[in-house]
């Protein structure tokens, strides 16, 4: 091509135009064919247009316009039209460039495209190949931020209801931040000052640039998985101050998702007070700075210490009060006679017991002797009531009565009748059988009393008296049969029982064939 063909060369534009004159037919110049009637192929035409274009537009162009008909292919390439009020042009943005976009292009978005002009051969179509796309007005980052924020918010990642409470006394805290830099320094100092009891772990990551978001996300995920092993109760995600570009990693989706998925509570402390990143919005608690995050993660040790001192004081005071009252009560009791002279009561009691014992023995002796003497009289009387004696006396009396009677009859018949009846009744009273019966009864009852008194002591020693139903005392095994009801008297009461079985001395020593074989359960109480 000839030099005089630079349509948009500013230098040349100023000078006299050597280019084609308006109106002059330059077709032949363009096509390089002197023969106007010879047609060229389409591809020739198109390639010549391409060449002309690349000469006219050797460098990148920068174009502003509105996106329409935006399509993102599965290949990752973007295709859309860029338009203004009068014209539009096709734009293609291939994957390598498209993947670097921080925001999502949409129809209607006004953008600045930096790229190259070319012709798409296949269709002979003018095409702008975009190498860079930035939103006009707000920056790409602000737009991307807004887009991700809206998306995650609608998905519920920022919901206050799902935010977890921060443990008050964490056993260990894990920090995700750069191992160098101000953030970890400030966090370390704050934790050491407030709550040195907690163990501190650090997973060092890049906090800006390529791959930073992935590292931060992975650190959070791994810490959450190992939290139990290390007793990590809280995670802090932190970065010192910087521009929106510096903090950009904390606005990226992988970080947001990792924080959202973590079961361990996460505190974010990114940038300065005014910087709010998406990580801050997803976190369970946001702190304005890394130092703030450390302050929220642990309590103030001094305050807690003071609280414990106070509890200590309350406990001592209260327990001390109770103890003092109890002590006073005990001392009062101690001053009483019971404690001053403890054996006083004992002496009194001992003396009393001795007295009672003496009285008891005395009364028993007395009872015995009175019983004896009570017995002696009837015994004497019994002897006196011996039938022979009585008969003698009665006979004598009878004689006397007869003679009296005879005498009285000799003299006074009426009076003697009365006297006779009087004497008759006296005789009846004196009848030996009557008096004997009375005496016997008295003796029997006294005898029983005596018996009772005498064998009580034996019972007290552990012996018992067993009686049959009629009251007869059981003395021999011969009186016993299985099924017999017996009553057993102990020193302080009695009980009834049913005989199951038994054996006498002879049976125990020699079992004959006639004996029924007994099983153990059928054995009597005294079987060998």
């Amino acid at each position: 091509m000839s030099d005089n063909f630079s349509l948009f060369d500013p230098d040349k534009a100023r000078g006299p135009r050597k280019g084609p004159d308006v109106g002059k037919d330059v077709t032949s110049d363009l096509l390089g064919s002197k023969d106007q009637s010879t047609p060229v192929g389409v591809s020739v035409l198109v390639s010549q247009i391409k060449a002309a274009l690349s000469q006219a537009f050797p460098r990148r162009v920068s174009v502003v316009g509105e996106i329409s008909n935006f399509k993102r292919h599965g290949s990752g390439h973007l295709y859309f039209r860029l338009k203004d009020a009068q014209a539009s042009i096709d734009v293609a943005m291939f994957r390598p460039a498209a993947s670097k976009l921080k925001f999502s292009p949409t129809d209607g978005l006004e953008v600045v495209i930096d790229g190259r002009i070319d012709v798409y051969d296949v269709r002979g179509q003018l095409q702008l190949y975009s190498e860079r796309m930035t939103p006009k007005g707000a920056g790409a980052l602000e737009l991307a931020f807004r887009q991700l924020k809206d998306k995650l918010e609608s998905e519920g990642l920022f919901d206050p209801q799902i935010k977890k409470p921060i443990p008050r006394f964490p056993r260990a805290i894990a920090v995700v931040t750069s191992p160098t830099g101000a953030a970890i320094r400030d966090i370390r100092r704050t934790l050491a000052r407030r709550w040195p009891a907690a163990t501190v772990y650090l997973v060092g990551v890049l906090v800006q640039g390529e791959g930073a978001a992935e590292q931060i996300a992975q650190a959070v995920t791994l810490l959450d998985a190992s939290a139990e092993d290390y007793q990590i109760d809280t995670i802090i995600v932190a970065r010192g101050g910087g521009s929106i570009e510096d903090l950009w990693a904390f606005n990226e989706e992988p970080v947001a998702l990792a924080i959202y998925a973590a079961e361990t509570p996460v505190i974010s402390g990114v940038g300065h007070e005014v910087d709010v990143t998406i990580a801050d919005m997803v976190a369970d608690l946001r702190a304005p700075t890394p130092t703030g995050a450390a302050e929220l993660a642990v309590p103030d040790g001094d305050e807690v210490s003071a609280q414990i001192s106070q509890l200590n004081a309350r406990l001592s005071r209260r327990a001390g009060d109770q103890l003092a009252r109890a002590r006073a009560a005990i001392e009062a009791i101690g001053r009483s006679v019971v404690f001053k002279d403890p054996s006083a009561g004992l002496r009194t009691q001992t003396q009393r017991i001795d007295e009672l014992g003496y009285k008891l023995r005395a009364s028993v002796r007395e009872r015995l002797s009175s019983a004896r003497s009570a017995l002696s009289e009837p015994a004497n009387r019994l002897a006196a009531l011996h039938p022979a004696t009585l008969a003698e006396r009665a006979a004598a009396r009878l004689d006397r009565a007869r003679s009296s009677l005879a005498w009285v009859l000799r003299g006074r018949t009426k009076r003697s009748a009365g006297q006779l009846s009087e004497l008759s009744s006296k005789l009846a009273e004196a009848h030996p059988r009557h008096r004997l019966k009375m005496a016997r009864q008295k003796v029997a009852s006294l005898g029983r009393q005596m018996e009772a008194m005498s064998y009580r002591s034996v019972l007290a020693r552990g012996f018992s008296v067993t009686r049959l139903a009629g009251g007869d005392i059981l003395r021999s095994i011969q009186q016993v049969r299985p099924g017999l009801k017996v009553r057993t008297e102990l020193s302080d009461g009695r009980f009834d029982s049913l005989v199951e079985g038994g054996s006498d001395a002879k049976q125990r020593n020699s079992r004959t064939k006639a004996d029924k074989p007994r099983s153990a359960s059928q054995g009597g109480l005294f079987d060998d």
Partner: protein
Amino acid sequence: MARSKKTFAEALEQLERIVAEVESGEVSLEDSIDKYAEGVELIKQCQTILDAAEKKIQLLAKGKASQLEAAGELPETDRQ
């Protein structure tokens, strides 16, 4: 939990409960002596934890099997 003794939170909570009980006056003398002893023990445990001073920061890094492993200590630099 792997730890046999209480966490600080548990110890503090129990201590506050004991003090409240003893202060309520509804505890017999024997019980309050027991509780006092228990309270004193808890106070000692809490103070032991408070006095612990972990000065180091342990580094963790991704190791084999994509798990976190101990990776030494973060050095303290005087001039930061």
